[in-house]
């Protein structure tokens, strides 16, 4: 049984910040105030802090708007790695594992959990470094499988449905003007030509009226 790890996150950093969504109209991005203490399912607290710091360099919080920190990207990644995806449920994993051509796709035996565990080892203490130094370290591993996964997962954690742990308060969707899963645009689809249509985002649970069980909770 693994020791219980928690990650304490500040959720207040974006309250009241003005961001410019893609219609170039300023709007207020809402996120809750205070701190969140989130139980971790896969990472240790130290690993989670390093992943959060790396994701924050990939998708920084800056003048163009909030980023991976506010969206809770690390929570998304933690849950994915703890669930079936982390254990390679969505991949054919029968041996032999042979080196292939790039066009034959990823062929290694290492699953996403293994890739993170190994990839994080040389990054120990990453979250305690200066931003410029962090960027230099990430530039050095840019072409690794680990970094490619981390970049993909950062984007996913920014823009997933909030039920998966990222995109907290739909902050990623607000940032790009994505309205989430809405039932119909029948009246708007041929009317908004050349001008932005930006309805308020809704989550899947809000649309269907009940909680939906996400894939990471499956066996």
């Amino acid at each position, binding site marked *: 049984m693994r020791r219980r790890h928690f990650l304490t996150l500040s959720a207040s950093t974006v309250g009241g910040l003005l961001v410019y969504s*893609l219609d170039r109209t300023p709007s207020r991005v809402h996120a809750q105030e205070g701190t969140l203490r989130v139980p971790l399912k896969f990472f240790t607290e130290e690993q989670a802090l390093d992943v959060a710091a790396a994701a924050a*360099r*990939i*998708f*920084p919080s*800056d003048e*163009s*708007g909030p980023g991976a920190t506010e969206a809770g990207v690390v929570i998304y990644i933690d849950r994915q790695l703890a669930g079936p*995806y982390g254990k*390679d449920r*969505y*991949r*054919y*994993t*029968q041996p*032999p594992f*042979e080196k*292939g*051509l*790039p*066009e*034959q*796709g*990823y*062929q290694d035996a290492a699953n996403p959990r293994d890739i993170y565990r190994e990839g994080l080892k040389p990054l120990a203490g990453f979250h305690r470094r200066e931003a410029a130094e962090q960027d230099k370290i*990430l530039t050095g591993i*840019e072409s690794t499988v680990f970094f490619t996964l981390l*970049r993909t997962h*950062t*984007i996913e954690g*920014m*823009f*997933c*449905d909030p039920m*998966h742990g990222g995109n907290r308060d739909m902050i*990623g*969707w607000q*940032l*790009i*003007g*994505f309205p989430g*899963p809405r*039932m*119909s*645009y*029948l009246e*708007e*689809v*041929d009317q908004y*030509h*050349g*001008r*932005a*249509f930006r309805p308020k985002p809704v989550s*899947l649970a809000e*649309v*269907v009226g009940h909680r*939906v069980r*996400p*894939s990471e909770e499956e066996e």
Partner: protein
Amino acid sequence: MKRLAPVDAVIVGGGWNGLLMASELTRRTGLSVVVLERGEARKTQDYAAGMDELDYGIRLRMMQAIRDETVTLRHQTRERALPIRQYGSFLPGSGVGGAGEHWSGISYRYQPRDFRLLSHLCEKYGARSLPPDHALADWPVTYDELEPYYDRTEKMMGVSGKAGNLRGKRIEGGNIFEGPRSAEYPTPPMKSPYLAALFGEAARKLGYHPYPLPAATTSVDYTNPDGVSRAGCSFCGYCERFGCMIGAKSQPTNTLMPLLRGKKKFELRAGAWVRRIIAKDGQAQGVNYVDSKGEEVFQPATMVFLASWTLNNTRLLLLSQIGEPYDPASGKGVVGRGLTHQVSTAAATAFFDKPLNRFMGAGSAGTAIGDFDGDAFDHAEANFLGGGTLYTVCYGFRPMANFGVVPASVRSRWGREWKKSALEFYDRTGRISFYGEHLAYRQNYMDLDPTYKDHLGDPLLRLTLDWQDNERRMASFMSGKAVEIARAMGAQEITRFPGLGRYDTTRYQSTHLQGGAIMGANETESVVNWYLQHWRVPNLFVLGASAFPQNPSGNPTLTAVALTYRTADAVIDRYLKHPGTLV
């Protein structure tokens, strides 16, 4: 092994072709019909809770479990094939409805020339113009023979569109390059999202002939000739890779299952994994499968219909040792011959200064031009044979898969500069896509892999597949045309398709694979005759695009389903009276 009571017809695969055959047999004869589907049961009501990009768009809930079974791929026979370990270039569906649940619904008819491609190219350019390693063949069925079945299929699905050739009369606004149609589309074209409208205006300005994509995502409320009613599309943007929550996208579950549900002589068994077709002395006896509880079962049947998608149809014939496997060295044998995919590219990615609202859309809401399809254009400036369709489709742009595309002028792929540009262009990026015909070659084929196995221990299917110069030149030529159109659409920056290179399993192209059990004029060159009846096992029918001798650019579903209607007529009107070969 448990032996079940015999049935009249067993159908392997519960997708478009399998369930259509089931519904024709059930409604028009008194036969007992069992459909074996290895995935799960589904219904429209399941789909609203499925509007989740991660679970459906990325983790691919509607696809075959790749953990259990995949295919291996190599480019040439002298290379070692390796398994495609995670989905990339195509997405085979599973579950009731098959890939017909998660499809886009773009529903093309093929051109009359496509049905006699070999003769056509020889007449027009001379036999010497063909690539020396081609394996092209005429189809043993003509456009005119198939036309009534195309019409029936469009009416069954409620395809939206505008005719461009009505009984030989060219009609502006439709695809004027299409073959003659006996009737207008059953429902009017879909509404045009902004990007599709921009494409249409630009194409017209350049002298092309834009038309609305034919869409099985019906545009208005529609009741088909079978009495099945469906709602019009609401452009929710959760379309391809998803099941339609309101049933607007024609899917086997909403178009065929209503005709079958509750019928006494029909049974659908989900979770049934067919491993072998059992044939003896030129007669199929039934099929062996593993049921949802893991038990081995033999289902005897008087007729067997194999309708389990191109790759699995071929694999089951090979595993069952029915017919001679194709050997590329000698050119002998038939099973596995003529594997084709589709030249499917993002011909141009265009960055605009106006928001496009790309989250609104449907898998087949778009605009296309046929000016570069087949021989609609002068090939004097083209150093390749054939052609295809340039189009833009507003399928519903979802952010997890699509965020991060930036113009070439932005060098970084992460960090502050990338983020700023990716945010700016997220909803200002449009794509002009291309799909083109993929010729059949002697060296592109399928057989059983000597190393890798599925979860039950059966060999995986091995694809030997690569692009040749004809496809590479075509992709590059069409990319040039797409860039011109993007410029006319007012794009600020444009990224060209980088080129086809070698066949790449990691880039999604389309789930349009053809061949392996092709139809032809005789049994030395084909697996099935023009009623998709096995040449040597006349009570075995192999349905679907596995029968296409080559890919004729457009998406195959409409044609595959039209052929199934034709087979159903032949079986019901003739075969049942005199079982035996139909030709």
